[in-house]
C-alpha cells in the first residue's frame, strides 16, 4: 500500500502502455449519449472525468451474457468426457467508478459463498481493477452517497483520486497494483490519506440524490413492507423486460442450458443472464410460478437489494446507487422512487 502523485496525462500514458501488452477495458462513448467498457485500441480516447454510468456495468465483463461452462462427449465405450471451460486470460478494467467497484466487491462475496463459482473466479482472479474516484455526480439519477458506495475503493488494485490542481493521487492497494505500476515515474506521496480526506471534504453536499433516512432505516422500512400498494403502483407501467436486472452491477442470476450437437452424443453446457423481473423467472418443475405478477417480482427485486442480501452478507445496501436501472427503464420506473415511497409510507405488515 503506497501513495503517489502524477499528472493526468502521465496516468493516461500509463494506461495506454498497459493496453499495448494486455487487454485493457475503459469507458468509451458510443451511440447517441452512452458509454460502454470497450477494449482500448491505439486510437481510443481516454478521459477520466466525464462519463455517465456505462450501459452495462464492468462486472459483466467477468460474467458474460452467454458463457460456456463445460463441454461433454459420450464415447462409444459408454464413458462420458467432461471438460470445464475456464477463462484464465489476464485483463485490466480501468476507469471503474466507486459504485461499480462496490458492485464487483459484492459480486465477489456472493459468488465465493457456498460452492464458489469457478468460472467467475477464474476471470476475477486474472483481472486488475483501476478505480477512479468521483468528485462530482456523474448523472442526475445517481444516489451513490445515499447508499454508502461513493467512497468505496476496496477491490481496486490501483485507485486514483483527482486533485484540485489537476494532478492525481494514486493509491496502490495490492501486489498486482504494484506490478502494474512498475517502471512508472510517479512521485511518492507521504500524506496520501490526508490528501484524500481533503478531496472528500471539498465535495459537494448533498452528492447526487439523497434519502431522508440512512441505509439501516431503509432496510427496516423495506422489511416491514410486504403488503403495500407501493408494489402495485410502481409496476403499472412495467413491461417485465428485465432491463433493470440486466444492467444492475449487483445482479448475477443466470439460467443454465445444455445444448446438444446434432450427433446427440456431445454438446456443451452454457449459462446466460436471467432476470427476476422476467415473468417466467420463478417457474418451477410442474409449471407453478411463485411470482406470476409483476408487483411480486418488483418486491422481490427491491428486497434482494435492501433486505435479503444486506441481511445475509452484512455489507450494506446491495444497491450501489448508480442509477442505471432507472435511467434505462423504458417505463420510467426508478428504484429510487420506490425506496422514497417506502420511506414515506406508514408501516404495514
Amino acid at each position, binding site marked *: 500500500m503506497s501513495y503517489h502523485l502524477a499528472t493526468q496525462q502521465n496516468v493516461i500514458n500509463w494506461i495506454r502502455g498497459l493496453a499495448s501488452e494486455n487487454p485493457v477495458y475503459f469507458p468509451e462513448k458510443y451511440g447517441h449519449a452512452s458509454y460502454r467498457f470497450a477494449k482500448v485500441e491505439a486510437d481510443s480516447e481516454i478521459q477520466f472525468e466525464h462519463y455517465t454510468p456505462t450501459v452495462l456495468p464492468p462486472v459483466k465483463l467477468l460474467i458474460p451474457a452467454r458463457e460456456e461452462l463445460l463441454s461433454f462427449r459420450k464415447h462409444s465405450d459408454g464413458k462420458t468426457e467432461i471438460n470445464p471451460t475456464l477463462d484464465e486470460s489476464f485483463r485490466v478494467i480501468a476507469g471503474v467508478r466507486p459504485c461499480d467497484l462496490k458492485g464487483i466487491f459484492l459480486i465477489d462475496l456472493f459468488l465465493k459463498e457456498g460452492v464458489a463459482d469457478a468460472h467467475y473466479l477464474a476471470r476475477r482472479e486474472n483481472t486488475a481493477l483501476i478505480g477512479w474516484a468521483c468528485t462530482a455526480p456523474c448523472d442526475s439519477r445517481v444516489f451513490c452517497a445515499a447508499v454508502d458506495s461513493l467512497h468505496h475503493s476496496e477491490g481496486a488494485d490501483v485507485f486514483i483520486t483527482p486533485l484540485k490542481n489537476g494532478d492525481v493521487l494514486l493509491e496502490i492497494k495490492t501486489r498486482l497494483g504494484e506490478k502494474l505500476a512498475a517502471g512508472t515515474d510517479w512521485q511518492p506521496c507521504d500524506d496520501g490519506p490526508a490528501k484524500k480526506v481533503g478531496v472528500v471534504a471539498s465535495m459537494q453536499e448533498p452528492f447526487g440524490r439523497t434519502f431522508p433516512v440512512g441505509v439501516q432505516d431503509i432496510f427496516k422500512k423495506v422489511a416491514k413492507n410486504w403488503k403495500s400498494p407501493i408494489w402495485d403502483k410502481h409496476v403499472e407501467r412495467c413491461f417485465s423486460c428485465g432491463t433493470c436486472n440486466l444492467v444492475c452491477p449487483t445482479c448475477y442470476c443466470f439460467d443454465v442450458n445444455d445444448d446438444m450437437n446434432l450427433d446427440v452424443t456431445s454438446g456443451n453446457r452454457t449459462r446466460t443472464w436471467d432476470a427476476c423481473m422476467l415473468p417466467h423467472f420463478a417457474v418451477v418443475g410442474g409449471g407453478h410460478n411463485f411470482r406470476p405478477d409483476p408487483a411480486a417480482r418488483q418486491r422481490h427485486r427491491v428486497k434482494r437489494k435492501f433486505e435479503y442480501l444486506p441481511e445475509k452478507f452484512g455489507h450494506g445496501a446491495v444497491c450501489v446507487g448508480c442509477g442505471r436501472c432507472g435511467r434505462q427503464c*423504458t417505463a420510467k420506473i426508478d428504484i429510487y422512487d420506490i425506496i422514497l415511497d417506502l420511506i414515506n409510507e406508514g408501516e404495514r405488515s
Partner: protein
Amino acid sequence: MKPKVAFFDFASCEGCQLAILNCEDILLDILNLVNLVEFREAISEKAPRYDIAFVEGSIHRDEDIERLQNLRSRTTVLVALGACACNGCVQARSNFVAPAVNYEAVYGEDARNRVQVDADFWSLWSHTRVRPLDAVVKVDAYLRGCPVVPAEFLHLVKSMLRGTTPYFPPDAVCVECKKNGNECVLERGETCMGPITWGGCNSICVNNGYVCDGCRGTLPHANIQSHITLMREHNIKDEDIRSRYRLFLGAEPIGRGV
C-alpha cells in the same frame, strides 16, 4: 427411423424457407438425420404422412383453410414457420382496408368494378381476412420472425430429434438488446416495439442501428397500455401508433385495438 419432415407454404414470400436453406453449414448434417419428404423450394417428391410439418404463410381464403386442416390431419407435429404463419405479418394490414379499395390500388378501376358484378370473382371476397395458422388449427411450435432465426430452427430440430420440448423464453427483445450491450433505442430519441415483442432474434435490428418493428409478435404478458403511453410521450400521433402496431401485428389484438 428418421422422422419425416415436410415444408409447406400459404400466403408468404417463402423467405423463411430460404432462410432455412441458407443454413448451409449445418443443412447437410440435418438432412442426414431427417427424411425430407416434401419441400417445394427444394425437392419435387410428395408424401401422405409427416412427423413434422413446417408451415409458412398466413391464411386468407376458404380453400386455404381446407388445405391447412388437411395438412394438420396428416402430421404429428405442426410448426408455424415465420411471422406470416405465427401472427399474420404485413399482409394483415389489408384486414383494415375494404377489399374494393385494395383491388383498385393493385389492379385498377376496371378490376374493382368487375369483381363486384361478376359472380366468378365473388369467392375472392373471402380474401378479406388474413389470419395466422393458429386461428384455424392447433399449432405445436412457433418459429417467429420475419424471417425465422436459423438458431431457433436448429434448436427446434435438435429438441425434436432428442424428444425434448423446445423452449423459447417469452422474453422481450430488450433482454437480448441488453445482453448485446446496445444503447436503448429510446436513448436515441426513437421509439421501439422491443418492450412488448417476443425476443429470440438476438435483437438483430437494433444491433444494426434500426429499431424493433415487432415482427415476432406481441408477448403474452405485453403491457400494451404502457406501450401506448410510451409512444404518446414521444409525441407520436395515435394514427401513427396504430400504423406502427399494424405493420406486423394487424391480425393480433394490438393491431385491431388502439
